[in-house]
């Protein structure tokens, strides 16, 4: 392995370490914040770092979408709702049924441990060891993914757009003010 390749690999590792640290620390901070506004901010950090990871995976289109849709639109939505609903929380973790939920977390940890072990143990498998960008033209670019979306996955694409429409309508219906008086058309 020559020096240039080695230093490129080195840089790549450092970038990956920083980004994944951002993702995980952001995630942990999100989950542990008492104030939802801080949580949202940490989640933005997580999603931004995640977009970076996407980029290192040559998923350029998805990286941009992650920033636009998640770190942008969805998080703004969260901020709005947090502003509407925000109330001081006396205890961040409910006492009731804590044992069950702690057992659930432990069980999730067990699953995590098992799968992580398997993945690290089998890291030499071709599928898990692959590290190069595949020799596909325009891999992960808007045009390549867009071509797939509008050719092979046209029907699911239209279906998902319908789902989004439904979600919008449903959101409007759910948050609409229900008046007590009968003059309202909503009952």
């Amino acid at each position: 392995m020559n020096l240039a390749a080695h230093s490129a690999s080195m840089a790549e590792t450092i970038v990956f370490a920083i980004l994944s640290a951002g993702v995980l620390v952001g995630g942990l901070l999100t989950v542990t914040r008492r104030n939802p506004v801080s949580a949202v901010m940490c989640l933005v950090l997580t999603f931004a770092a995640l977009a970076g990871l996407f980029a290192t995976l040559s998923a350029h289109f998805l990286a941009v979408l992650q920033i636009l849709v998640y770190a942008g639109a969805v998080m703004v939505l969260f901020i709005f709702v947090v502003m509407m609903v925000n109330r001081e929380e006396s205890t961040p973790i409910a006492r009731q049924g804590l044992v069950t939920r702690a057992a659930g977390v432990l069980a999730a940890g067990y699953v995590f441990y098992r799968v992580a072990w398997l993945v690290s143990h089998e890291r030499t498998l071709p599928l898990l060891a692959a590290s190069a960008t595949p020799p596909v033209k325009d891999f992960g670019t808007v045009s390549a993914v867009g071509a797939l979306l509008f050719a092979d996955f046209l029907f699911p694409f239209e279906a998902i757009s319908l789902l989004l429409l439904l979600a919008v309508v449903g959101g409007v219906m759910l948050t609409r003010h229900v008046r007590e008086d009968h003059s309202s058309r909503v009952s």
Partner: protein
Amino acid sequence: MPSELRMIPLLPLLSAAYLILFGRRHSRESVHRIACLAVGAAFLVSADVFFFWFPILYQSNGLTDLVGTWLASGDLQVDLALRMDALSGLMCLMVTFVGTLIHIYSTGYLAHEQDYARFFAYLNLFCGAMLLLVLGDSLPVMFVGWEGVGLCSYLLIGFWYGEAANASAGKKAFITNRVGDLGFLIGMFLLFRAVGTLDIPVLVDTARAGSPSLTAALWWGQPVAFWAALFLFMGAVGKSAQIPLYVWLPDAMAGPTPVSALIHAATMVTAGVYMVARLGALYLLAPVALAIVAGVGALTALFAAVIALGQNDFKKVLAYSTISQLGFMFVGVGTGNFAGGIFHLFTHAFFKAGLFLCAGSVMHAMAGSGDITRMGGLAQKLPFTTWVFRVCWLAICGVPIFSGFFSKDAIVAGAFATEVFGPRLHWVGPTLGAGLLVAALGTAFYMSRLYCLVFTGECRADLDTRAHLHESPFAMVGPLLVLGLGALLAGVMGLPPALSRSHGDLIGRWLATALGRQPEVSRALQWRVMATSALIALAGIGLAWRFFGGGVREPARRFTAAWPHFTAAVRGKFFIDEIYDWLVVRPLRGLSRVFFLVVDRILIDKLLVGGWTVLVDTAGRLLRLVQVGDVQRYLAIFAIGLAALVYVMARPVAPSEVKVRIEGRSATVDLTEGKAAVDKLEYGFDFDGDGREDRVGAAANANWLYPRPGHYQLRIRIKDPRWNTSRTIARTIDIP
């Protein structure tokens, strides 16, 4: 063959259905017009068929109207077919004629009744069922009619169900009849098993041919015919109120009087006699069964006549009289004198219906009371009723000229002359005949007592009732007069040949084809019987006049004083009801109570019903605890489930078999992997149980040489390095 035959039962049945459904919408006039017209039309149709096909009925097996196949199941084929032959034609005429008269009578008798439409619907239904019984060409069709009349009897006895006594009288009649009907069913089954058909003409032909299928011994050396006949007779005993199942008939008097006249005197109760006569050929195959029929008949005739002596209720006296007269009829058919039995059935239908209608008329006048100790001297107030009663009374007593005289004589003479019982039982006939003569004496006595107490002497009713005494309306008196005329003249049908050579025994000759041979009665015997029974009738009337003429007289009082226990027993109907109560009703009731408490309350209510509710309830209570309503806990449980699944799936699959081979001190272990055998497993074998693994590697087998014999613990560890999971298997090894 004429399909109008089906109209005969259908007309009253349709009318009944209409009246049940829509009767309440009609006025009284419309209701009784519909009801009377239906029965009247049935009478006209039967008369039309009867007289149009007269020669055919006389000479052949009669006419059949095949409506369709009713049941076809395996070998069993039952047609819904009606047959009119000499016998059923005659019965049909009688039922519709008397039925029409009683319908008309009822319009007067029940003029003030609220439930007018219901009464006429039931009465129509009864006529339809009775006609089905009479015309049915096979035993199952007959049985439908048989049960139908039983149902109507029940409905009409309990017509005034507001009073508990009436309702329970209806139930008593129904349940007692069930006992007999069980016998009828068993008889049918036996016949079907033996002959393979239930068509009456086929059965009769088979029996006449003396087919071995019927004469083969069945149980206790008696032939099939005997058992079938006996069980069928059991049905007849229930329906025709003979010993031991007669107890329902006196109670049945709780129904309206026209019902008593039509159902419990003239028609339904004679169904048993009719059935025995129809299957006469079968009974002739089994003389012992015939002897039982005749014996039960004679015993009932005597027994009921004795009980009738001590009754003080107008209708009860008539009820026991009916039971007694039915006994006469059974002696008639039981001595092979089927025509005689049917003849008496006929005359009895007229005079007994007449007597009951007179009773109705009297009770109508007496404001519903039937207590004869409160009557007396009614002859002046009720002239028409009295005259009709006199005719019927003389008829039942057997006074010459009147119809009962001839029919009773036909039975008695037949009993003396019969040869159906064979040489070994030849004494049965004359004994029964003598018994009947005694019963005839009793009949004359109790009927005359009834006449004397009701119509002669001074009126013993209270002033209020006396003031309202009145003759019944024309609707009631008209039928009475017709029936009286019948009671007077019906004897013409069966004049003894000794009296008139050319016109003697018309009914016997008419029924000859349908019923087969009859006992030959010599002229001398006819004269002797006529003379004796005429004397007996007069003696009975005379004796009764001495005892009760114009009220209870001195000899009657002296008799009561001299025989107090006997009198009390007769008044109490020999306590048969009480005996049955102790023998049957109370044990059954106790048993039902036990079943109710054990099976119903505990087994069904507590265990089967309650058990399930408790189970479901407890399960619900327990499962409710799981439903905490907390989404996070649901998710936590989901995560735990997932972890459990991962735990199970990630462990190495257990080997399907652990083979241990021991040769001397050497042990070889071989693991046969299960179906989901995976590669890359690690195996560790610890042969001597010291905690150290003696053989480690990818091989699934290993061997070990033990230094000395003994008892060793073998532990095999299987490891899946990818999941970092392992499983341990333990075995013990004995090295000899």
